[in-house]
């Protein structure tokens, strides 16, 4: 009875604070003035005159239809004064759609969003006592300092987002440092005693990404940086590593000397830098290394206690929630607005409520829900089902599990279907087959039958006519497209190379044809061609890359044609759609080969020690060929969690 009472009071308390957090800031207004909201019509003169006077809550009480009619879109205006937070800063009408702009402020966002996310984390029980020695305090201070420098380095981006805050004054950075120090301190104090939950929180990062609105970093990156610095301070080998890696970082930075390229981060905000210049490359390279050290350290701390079966359930729940919340957000402007803000998403959730739309060729159009990438969402759904199958297979508790678990499987499968990630689906089937053939010790005849079924599935997925086309003119589609995408006056070194081999040899080299055929089969000819039309490395950049988290040079150095050749649509911000190509930009051929070799070696070792994780790693290794998931923090951390071999670390107990 007492337990029931305490749960009941907890729910009331949480509901009360949730309402307080969600409603109150957006009710910020002067209620004693003479300005009262008006019904929204095509005559928007009232809202043009009375900017920053009416709160969102006031506005909605007069215009309830804005909540559920999809020809309204509520958007944020981060370049707004603190006083204007939560108030209407303007309404525009474009065709039949009304855009209602709500004032938000970057500094208030840092505090407000942090408080919400930290309140959620604080609901979990503490596992240990908080220890705050000098080393921890120093890490928190240094981490806050690094983020202050980060804002300085990216001041070109923040000039558009920060209202009346002079980023050329030292005093401004003093203010920023104190704000970030306070938030960082709270993050560490609240998270550290509960860090055991980290592994099971990772799938939910796909929902609550924790990227601050208007900023190019997240609460998660602040956490990782603090842990990264803490790990470095406690480990002399890591300090030596940083010293050894410095020459390459300096060369990366030197390459950017006197250049200043800029890239709007768009949907990859939070895990990319938007400037390419000496200071930005120097800073971001070290930032990435410390981030990685921090993330690896946290993963290492919790990995031994992870129960993968429970992780699979959390992952399936997360992917199902992305579908459910995405559907809500797509048809409801208010949900769309609040989900973006309170979940810290890099991009607004989709507003396409027709989840089963097809294009002119009858193919299903991918649907991304609240997540910025449909492809990565598909990966999460497929991975969660694979984990459930692999680890549920061995887990006896599956027999006791209730119906709720079995509803998650079809929901995750449906999410995978909506994402239209066919590679993930194919890999899901292959992973099932691998596990079954290992466990059931099936005969050769049955193996042959499996192989036949698999080949049929591959042919169906790729399309029979496409397979035949590989052997004709389509075999060079990648290189042909790359040349066509180039502007007449500006060619990348890759395109120059392609033209050179086209002219000098009667036959294209085998690897070029093989790459082109492979790209055609997996429907990447055009996207990778766009990549090569832009990819303009010199010898050093080809070998060692241009530094991590930086795509500005790639997107700004060489201009290509601005529309797609096949569909004639606007090019927009088209990512390379391959994590290996992103790796090539970041670390060059040498770095990419090194990472690939180490990972392949680890996978081969896993085959003997941990077959289930071997299958999962195989899925990742192949899927990343055609997906750029590593550009998104949630996918990056989730994959990191699955790459680590949990059996290497001693386990005391597992958390459910």
């Amino acid at each position: 009875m007492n337990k029931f009472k305490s749960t009941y009071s907890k729910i009331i308390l949480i509901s009360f604070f949730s309402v307080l957090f969600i409603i109150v800031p957006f009710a910020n207004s002067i209620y004693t003035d003479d300005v009262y909201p008006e019904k929204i019509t095509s005559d928007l003169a009232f809202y043009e005159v009375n900017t920053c006077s009416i709160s969102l809550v006031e506005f909605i009480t007069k215009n309830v239809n804005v909540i559920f009619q999809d020809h309204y879109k509520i958007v944020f205006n981060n370049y707004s004064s603190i006083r204007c937070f939560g108030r209407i800063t303007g309404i525009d009408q474009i065709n039949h759609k009304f855009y209602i702009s709500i004032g938000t402020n970057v500094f208030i966002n840092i505090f407000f969003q942090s408080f919400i996310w930290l309140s959620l984390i604080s609901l979990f029980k503490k596992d240990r006592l908080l220890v705050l020695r000098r080393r921890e305090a120093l890490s928190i201070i240094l981490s806050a300092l690094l983020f202050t420098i980060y804002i300085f380095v990216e001041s070109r981006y923040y000039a558009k987002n920060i209202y009346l805050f002079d980023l050329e004054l030292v005093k401004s950075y003093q203010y920023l440092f104190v704000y970030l120090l306070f938030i960082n301190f709270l993050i560490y104090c609240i998270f550290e005693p509960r860090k055991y939950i980290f592994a099971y929180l990772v799938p939910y990062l796909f929902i609550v990404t924790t990227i601050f609105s208007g900023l190019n970093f997240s609460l998660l990156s602040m956490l990782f940086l603090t842990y990264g610095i803490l790990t470095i301070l406690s480990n002399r080998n890591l300090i030596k590593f940083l010293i050894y890696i410095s020459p390459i970082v300096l060369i990366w930075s030197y390459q950017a000397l006197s250049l200043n390229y800029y890239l709007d981060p768009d949907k990859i905000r939070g895990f990319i830098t938007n400037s390419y210049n000496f200071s930005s490359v120097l800073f971001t390279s070290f930032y990435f290394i410390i981030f990685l050290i921090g993330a690896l350290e946290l993963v290492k701390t919790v990995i031994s206690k992870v129960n993968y079966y429970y992780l699979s359930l959390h992952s399936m729940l997360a992917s199902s929630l992305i579908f459910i919340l995405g559907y809500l957000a797509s048809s409801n402007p208010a949900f769309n607005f609040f989900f973006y803000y309170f979940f810290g998403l890099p991009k607004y959730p989709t507003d396409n409520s027709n989840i089963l739309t097809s294009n002119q060729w009858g193919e299903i159009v991918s649907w991304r829900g609240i997540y910025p990438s449909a492809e990565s969402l598909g990966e999460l759904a497929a991975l969660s089902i694979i984990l459930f199958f692999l680890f549920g297979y061995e887990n006896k508790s599956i027999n006791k599990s209730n119906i709720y678990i079995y509803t998650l499987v079809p929901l995750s499968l449906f999410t995978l279907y909506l994402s239209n990630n066919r590679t993930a689906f194919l890999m899901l089937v292959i992973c099932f087959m691998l596990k079954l053939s290992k466990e059931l010790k099936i005969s050769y005849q049955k193996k042959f039958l499996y192989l036949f079924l698999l080949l049929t599935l591959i042919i169906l997925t790729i399309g029979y006519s496409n397979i035949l086309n590989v052997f004709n003119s389509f075999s060079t589609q990648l290189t042909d497209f790359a040349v066509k995408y180039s502007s007449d006056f500006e060619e990348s070194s890759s395109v120059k190379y392609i033209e050179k081999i086209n002219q000098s040899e009667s036959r294209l080299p085998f690897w070029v044809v093989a790459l082109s055929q492979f790209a055609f089969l997996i429907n990447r000819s055009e996207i990778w061609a766009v990549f090569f039309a832009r990819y303009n490395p010199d010898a050093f950049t080809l070998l060692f890359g241009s530094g991590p988290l930086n795509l500005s040079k790639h997107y700004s150095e060489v201009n290509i044609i601005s529309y797609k050749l096949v569909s004639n649509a606007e090019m927009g911000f088209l990512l390379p759609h391959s994590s290996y190509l992103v790796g090539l930009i970041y670390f060059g051929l040498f770095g990419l080969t090194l990472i690939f070799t180490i990972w392949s070696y680890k996978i081969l070792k896993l085959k003997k020690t941990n077959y289930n994780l071997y299958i999962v790693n195989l899925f990742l290794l192949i899927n990343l060929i055609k997906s750029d998931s590593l550009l998104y923090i949630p996918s990056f951390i989730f994959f990191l969690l699955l790459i680590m071999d949990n059996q290497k670390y001693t386990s005391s107990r597992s958390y459910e």
Partner: protein
Amino acid sequence: MINSIVSNLFSTTDELCGAEPSGFIDVEIGSDPNFIFVPDSSYVSRNLYDSENNTVIVNSYLECKHYVDGGWDILNQQLNESFFHNALYIFSLLGLLTSFIILKYLKNE
């Protein structure tokens, strides 16, 4: 109040006019109507406002200092924003201090 506490921590002239140039000699201008301010080519011009939002562009540190001493300031909106920033600054400092004291107390417990 918060505004004035924090403003006193930093020199307003420095805040509005930038750092004092090396070798700067302060000239007593008083209310001499014939005084001519010589523009400083190395100085980035700034806008200052009075209480009625009238604008003046200053082209040297001396000119800027003269106007700031005479009550010219930044825009009202900017003053508003500064007030909120000062409040956030104090809030963060107090928050840090309080959290630290609580942690110390809990440790001793």
